[in-house]
């Protein structure tokens, strides 16, 4: 009775849908090579990767959260606030710290802990209190940033313990450590979502929460975990960014979240949950990184840059729509 009519092509197609941006990336590389001889050099491409490393972690976090059917805007504030607070816990008051004088080696664990705590608080309000994720995390975006501005009084922290600088500035085997780290985490994300129970349950929750619950998935627990993981990844992004910049400015991470969403969505992650892959999100990050790099190389006037930039996002969106074949939500 079962008619198993040629299932394979369909599956293939579905798999390629994650990669609708690959043609865009190819076009960008070709066009870029013509526009500027520097563009395709290993040095420049390494720079692009390094520049995108920390924002890519945010995209990873947001993709996980979006796939689970939720939303987190506050990630961008965590990028600055978590390392700032962690640093203030360990540096002396003269360097802008709280003067508690905890050991400097603990700064990265502290930072990740702060990120996790923010994620946990978001999760608490959204899951236990059933508040709108958009507005909770919007308010948290403002609050978390304020929790950086307040203690630092808006000042840049530039006397940092070496431990927090290392990851963002070290070079391992010829590539920046940040690139390795981001690469490893993306690989873990891709594998985790494809081959692990918890990853699959995130798709189920994002696709139909009630059905997931009825199938025995502990929805609240998974969602909470995802928020905590998201906050932790944002804090790690902050560590990498801190290392790359050598200081923590009061604006670190501010304004990233729009780009993060753009990268995730042109990469095929649905705002409605349950759809998209980490690999797709990664292609989104790469497109955005390459476009920014090209605009810089060509020295497009700052006034018109937004137009070119936004235009390219729109075009990428259209290509991904045409290649993907389905209406977007």
């Amino acid at each position, binding site marked *: 009775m079962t008619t198993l009519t040629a299932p394979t092509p369909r599956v293939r197609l579905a798999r390629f849908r994650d990669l609708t941006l690959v043609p865009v990336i190819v076009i960008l590389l070709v066009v870029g090579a013509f526009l500027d001889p520097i563009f395709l050099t290993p040095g420049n491409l390494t720079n692009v990767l390094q520049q995108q490393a920390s924002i890519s972690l945010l995209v990873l976090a947001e993709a996980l959260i979006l796939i689970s059917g939720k939303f987190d805007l506050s990630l961008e504030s965590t990028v600055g606030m978590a390392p700032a607070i962690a640093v203030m816990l360990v540096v002396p008051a003269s360097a802008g710290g709280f003067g508690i004088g905890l050991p400097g080696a603990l700064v990265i664990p502290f930072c990740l802990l702060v990120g996790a705590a923010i994620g946990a608080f978001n999760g608490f309000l959204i899951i236990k209190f059933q508040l709108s994720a958009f507005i909770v995390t919007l308010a948290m975006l403002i609050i978390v940033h304020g929790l950086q501005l307040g203690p630092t009084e808006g000042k840049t922290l530039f006397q940092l313990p070496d431990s927090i600088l290392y990851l963002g500035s070290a070079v391992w085997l010829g590539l920046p450590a940040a690139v390795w780290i981001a690469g490893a985490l993306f690989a873990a994300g891709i594998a985790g979502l494809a081959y692990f129970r918890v990853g699959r349950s995130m798709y189920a929750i994002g*696709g139909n929460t009630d059905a997931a619950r009825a*199938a025995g998935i502990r929805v609240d627990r998974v969602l909470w975990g995802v928020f905590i993981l998201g906050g932790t990844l944002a804090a790690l992004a902050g560590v990498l960014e801190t290392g790359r910049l050598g200081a923590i400015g009061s604006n670190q991470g501010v304004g990233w979240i729009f780009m993060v969403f753009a990268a995730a969505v042109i990469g095929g992650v649905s705002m409605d949950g349950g759809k998209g892959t980490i690999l797709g999100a990664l292609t989104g990050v790469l497109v955005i990184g390459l476009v920014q790099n090209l605009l810089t190389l060509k020295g497009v006037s700052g006034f018109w840059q937004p137009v070119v930039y936004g235009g390219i996002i729109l075009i990428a969106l259209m290509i991904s729509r045409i290649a993907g074949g389905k209406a977007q939500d």
Partner: protein
Amino acid sequence: MKYHVEARNVVKRFGPTVALDGAGIAIAPGETHALVGRNGAGKSTLVSILTGLQRQDEGEVLFAGEAAPALADRDAWRQRVACVYQKSTIIPALTVAENLFLNRQTGRGPINWRRLRARAREVLATYEVDVDAEALTGDLGVEQRQLLEIARALSFGARFIILDEPTARLDGPAIDRLFARMRALREQGVTMMYISHHLDEVYEICQSVTVFRDARHVLTRPVAGFPHDELVSAMTGEAGRRPAAYESRARTPAGRVVLSGARLSLAGRYRDVDISVRSGEVVGLAGSGSSGKVRLAETLVGLRRADSGTVTVNGTRVRPGDVPSALRAGLGFVPEDRHHEGFVPLLSVAENATIPIAHKLGRFGTVSPARRRARALRMIEDLHIKTEGPEQPVGDLSGGNAQKVVFARALVDDPSALVVINPTAGVDVRARQALLGAVEEAVERGAGAVLVSDELDDLRICDRVLVMFHGRVVRDVPRGWTDHELVAVMEGIRQ
């Protein structure tokens, strides 16, 4: 003879799926014409083409001999046809009154809400739907929503009405009222197309019947004098005359209690209910609308939390309102509304069917796709799920096949207790047999089952039927009841 509605050589493809392959239908003026076919035969696809929601890839649609209006001309379509779609078209955030008069709240100018409500009450009274015109439809049960959809379609005054499985979510008395309305409309000369998987309904209300099979037109015949068995073989394409009615099997329940609820109460729904199901036994739960039977079943599986009382699965007292702990104790269940709690539309058949056993499909938290696929292929075979393969998203399946996937999910872990709620809603004859067979097979393997249904035919496989009335179990009816007896108990006529 000029047909009132005619579709010729219609082809409709969805990606690789061919939903209609040169199929057609011709409906004479004033007749009630049945369209039957197995799940996925393409019936609902034809409905969406006949109502102008989708455009056929090939072929033509004619109304009274004239070509159908352009897709964009919604008003023209609405003048020609009204429809109860298979998928709910109720908007939950709006009131009953507004849903009834959606997009025709007023001719021109501002809406007079008071008048609208009054008109809505009239319609509701005419069609004997007992809901408040001001209630939000999101707060209604599925059955009331279905009644609302029917009332809306019938109240249009259209000359052609399509009803796509209107009775799948209705209980007996509601179906009787619907048929009474349909007869009255037919007397007024209204043409109707009626889709159902209950062939006895076809014989009761329709004059002719068209059968679709595998996206193609098979035959069109007058209903009168068309043998039931022949109709079934036309649908299934099986020459052998298998009996259309399901014959339940005999068995002797063992002694062990596998599922029990003690002194369960939920405010406003049911009170002080005791229920216990033994291994090898099917216990039916029957009752009219709002008897509380569905809520009770949902409590047993952990979807709802009772105010008081305990649920024991396989000897383990499960945490109230906690599905995972019930599943772990050895329970499997089919929820009432498959769209709501049954499946994740974007995920594959394989994945939906195996969520409860994901932890058994790999080590260290992994899920092996190969093992998942193998397991799913077995379920697809066992339950005869019509799909392109285990990787097809369940959202792309027809209703009956989606329901089979929900069954697969319930059965995948070899449950020792099985709870199925309205299991055959919207599934075709053969599928219905397969699903009821699956319940019986599970029971023969030693499970105990609770079957909640509005369909007396389904309840026939039960070893005993608990009848609920206003939140209490009023009778425990053993095998061998007649329809009339059971209905009388359900209606509270004979206590």
